């Protein structure tokens, strides 16, 4: 009829458009940030207390019932009425047993409310221990926790349970050093429960290099999380942690960010123990102390602090220890994160510790009295405290002949200076103080800028940002493509920008020299800080020319002079003046490095005797001295 005409169709279209209709799709997931019905902290505490109170009342009733039963049993046994009452007692005992099994979950819940993760002790019941571990590791949700139950042949049989995380353990070690001896070497004639069961097992059945006895769940968890296998025995409130660590990790490779021509070619890895070993292979000295800490409430990341006990200032060691122990966070991403938690000025761009992936760089610093920090899972080791000048020293400086090493050092400082001020200086002079340029150079620059439609500061800014983009892209793009992007970006983009008259050749030269100079700084963090500073200088020189540049340079000098690296002034040995030891901007001969850095206030200040080349004072080898 009239239902299918233009008007009705229009009406239905409008109706459909305007009137709300519930969506046919299921509602999308929305993560609520702060649900209104979230109980307040005080309500939560009250609720927890009420639960605990109810649980305790239940246990009390059960305890009263057990006492009543024991009294009754005692009376009937003392009266000698065995026949008629024993039957009743038996029934009553069975009821108590049943009630106990019913109460077990409540007991577990109560104990977990009291902090299962804390210092709660292991139970003698294997089943109860298993239940607690299952609760701790959220089983059955968690799929990589393995429980392996075995029986050790003995009189009586020793029910045993092995707990470990799949993937964290070396299965070969586990099979040969734990399961094989436990399952094959046992005998029905032996009475392992006589005496100390755990001690018997450790001494007679576990041929591994490291075992540890634990009595609480906190230690048990720590061991399991670190790749140990936990052995828990029925009837004993103790467990054994067997060292079976064996997860996959990168092997020792060449340092990727700190290559040297003459230095060592091995770099740190992500494995803490490998890293400590690499340092120990360089510093083979019983004086080298490795202290371990756990940082991160949830990640429980291991942090190692290394120092030479007879050299490092005890106050410095204590202060660093205090700072590490004072870090309270969920997880620790890397050594860089730890440093930000413990350094003196985390808001300033300048690094206050030297990060390196070269063991041959850590060794000399440790012998100078510094402290090294290793974070498990990170190949960058931080050395502290350091001075500003340390960041311009390379690991091979002392491997090269004196004139070559000093030439390279001066070049690096000069590179750092260029990388910091060159674009700002170019802008300041070409904008505000053109008279400082020789006429010929001024004319060349002016000629090259003739066709450029932008002001010089805009050119410099564009090129600086482009250079930073190329650098960042080169780092992020994987493999060989990264290098290609860098080359293609720098050459083609620069050439294209000049051809298109967007920037002048002079600006490209300035930015290219600046970029090149910034790569002469051996430390990546210092190089990054200088990049940030360069932009700051550039902005102020656009506004105020050399006045702005001078002011910001002064600000930076004052900031640097006020900074401390873990209590040590950042600009030592220049400001404040201390005994330099001839290793600041240039270095002296190796045989004249007699003192350790004065600012470190080491226990033993002397590095080598005044005359370190003792052979100079002895007679030259003569005929007959060959052997």
């Amino acid at each position: 009829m009239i239902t299918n005409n233009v008007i009705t169709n229009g009406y239905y279209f409008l109706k459909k458009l305007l009137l709300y209709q519930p969506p046919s799709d299921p509602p999308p997931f929305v993560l609520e940030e702060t649900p209104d019905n979230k109980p307040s902290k005080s309500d939560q505490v009250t609720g927890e207390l009420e639960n605990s109170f109810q649980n305790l009342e239940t246990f009390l009733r059960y305890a009263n019932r057990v006492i009543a039963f024991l009294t009754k049993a005692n009376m009937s046994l003392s009266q000698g009425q065995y026949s008629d009452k024993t039957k009743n007692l038996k029934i009553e005992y069975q009821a108590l047993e049943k009630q106990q099994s019913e109460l077990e979950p409540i007991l577990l819940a109560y104990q977990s409310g009291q902090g299962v993760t804390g210092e709660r002790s292991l139970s003698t019941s294997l089943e109860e221990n298993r239940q607690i571990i299952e609760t701790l590791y959220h089983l059955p949700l968690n799929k990589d926790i393995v429980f392996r139950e075995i029986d050790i042949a003995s009189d009586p049989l020793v029910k045993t349970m092995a707990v470990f995380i799949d993937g964290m353990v070396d299965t070969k070690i586990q099979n040969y050093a734990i399961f094989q001896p436990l399952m094959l070497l046992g005998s029905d004639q032996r009475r392992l429960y006589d005496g100390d069961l755990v001690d018997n097992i450790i001494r007679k059945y576990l041929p591994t290099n490291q075992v540890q006895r634990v009595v609480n769940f906190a230690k048990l968890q720590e061991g399991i999380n670190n790749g140990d296998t936990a052995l828990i025995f029925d009837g004993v409130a103790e467990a054994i942690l067997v060292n079976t660590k064996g997860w996959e990790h990168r092997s020792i490779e060449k340092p990727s960010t700190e290559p040297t021509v003459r230095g060592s070619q091995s770099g740190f890895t992500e494995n803490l123990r490998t890293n400590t070993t690499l340092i120990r292979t360089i510093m083979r000295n019983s004086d080298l102390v490795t202290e371990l800490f756990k940082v991160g409430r949830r990640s429980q990341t291991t942090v190692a602090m290394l120092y030479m006990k007879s050299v490092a200032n005890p106050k410095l060691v204590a202060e660093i220890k205090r700072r590490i122990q004072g870090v309270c966070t969920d997880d620790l991403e890397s050594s860089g994160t730890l440093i930000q938690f413990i350094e003196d000025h985390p808001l300033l761009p300048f690094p206050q510790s030297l990060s390196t992936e070269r063991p041959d760089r850590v060794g000399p610093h440790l012998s100078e009295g510094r402290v090294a920090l290793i974070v498990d899972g990170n190949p960058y080791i931080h050395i502290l405290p350091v001075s500003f000048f340390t960041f311009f020293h390379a690991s091979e400086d002392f491997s090269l002949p004196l004139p070559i090493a000093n030439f390279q050092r001066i070049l690096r400082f000069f590179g750092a200076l260029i990388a910091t001020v060159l674009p700002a200086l170019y802008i300041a002079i070409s904008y505000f103080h053109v008279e400082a340029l020789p006429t010929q150079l001024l004319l060349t620059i002016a000629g090259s800028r003739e066709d450029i439609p932008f002001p010089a500061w805009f050119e410099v800014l564009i090129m600086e940002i482009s250079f930073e983009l190329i650098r960042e892209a080169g780092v992020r793009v994987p493999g060989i493509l990264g290098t290609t992007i860098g080359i293609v970006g720098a050459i083609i983009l620069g050439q294209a920008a000049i051809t298109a008259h967007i920037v002048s050749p002079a600006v490209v030269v300035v930015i290219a020299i600046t970029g090149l100079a910034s790569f002469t700084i051996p430390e990546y963090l210092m190089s990054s800080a200088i990049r940030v500073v360069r932009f700051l200088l550039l902005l102020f020189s656009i506004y105020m020319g050399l006045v702005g540049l001078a002011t910001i340079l002064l600000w930076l000098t004052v900031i640097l002079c006020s900074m401390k690296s873990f209590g040590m002034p950042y600009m030592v040995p220049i400001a404040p003046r201390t005994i330099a030891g001839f290793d600041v901007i240039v270095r002296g001969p190796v045989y004249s490095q007699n003192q350790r850095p004065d600012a470190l206030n080491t226990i033993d200040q002397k590095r080598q005797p005044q005359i370190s080349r003792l052979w100079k004072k002895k007679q030259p080898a003569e005929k007959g001295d060959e052997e």
Partner: protein
Amino acid sequence: MSFKNDRMGTAEGIALIFTMTITTVFVTLPSEIVEASGELGWLSEIASDLSTMAMLFLFIYVLERFPGDLFHVSTCLLGRLCACLISIYYVIMFFSVAILLLRDFSENTLFAALPELDFHSAVGWYAVSVGFILYFGIEGIARAAYIILPFSAGGMILTFVLLFPHYKPYYLFPWQGTGITNALIKNGVLVATNAAAPLLAVIAKSFQSIRVLRAAAIFGLGGSMLIKSIAILILIMVFGTSTATERTLPFFEMTRLISLNRYIQRIDSIFIMLWVIAGILGIAISLYMGLYLITRLVNLPTMKPLIPLVTLLLAQFSMLPPDSASVRALESILVKGYFLIGIYVIPILLFAATLLKEKWGTKCASE
């Protein structure tokens, strides 16, 4: 804020006193000295500096016997009321130095570096810079001054060397200028060109020992005296007395003359950086001394809250004189009058009190 005791050594002491006394070479003062003393202007500078050094040694004598800072020593020797008056005097003196330097360097900036910049912006820029670095304390400022010292001294010496082709030694004659007595006494000893030198006594507690103060007085003020007197000598040799007196910024104008070849010419722009840094440091150090004395006077735990307020006030004060001529007139009144009390009267007063106290054998309670 870092005004903890026993932190600064000889290097910092030398840098502080050198920076505070050398800044005058970048402003009009050398021309004024030449105007007053003629060809013997360099001698006036030496006379003024040596007399200031002698007064510093009086301070050091007092501080050796009564350790502490200026406020504590004055309280101990002359009583709290006198100590307050002395402190107030020095607060005004250091703030005056800061105001004059702020005004001088702002005008220098407009004249030599940024002619299109607004005057208020120039003053504001210096004030903000000074306020910012003051937050890092005297330790950081002194160390920065020490790092910059070789560059500033070296830069000035290099300028003197590069000006060699312009030397006209006969400009130094007649060598007696306006008269030896005039140069030594009236325009030398009685002109307080180093008004900020007593800073060593003001923050004496911050230095490690009396030996440090002594070294700072000798090498800091001595080095500054050497460079300033040479600068005046060369100014006369380059321009002659009559032209030199007309120069508003004599040092800057000397650098403009440098032209060794087509590549080394007009290096005055590079020296802009030098005098900007010296100026900011000079203003900051004077301001710090004034603020330090205020915190001691009213027993404040820190000076940080005062920094923005006082910097803003001083910036406003520095903009009050209508032109450079009135600034020069004000400066002349201060250096030939008010500042002389801080340079001569107070050290002699404290020295005399020390002698009397020693004679009577009375001791001071330590802080």
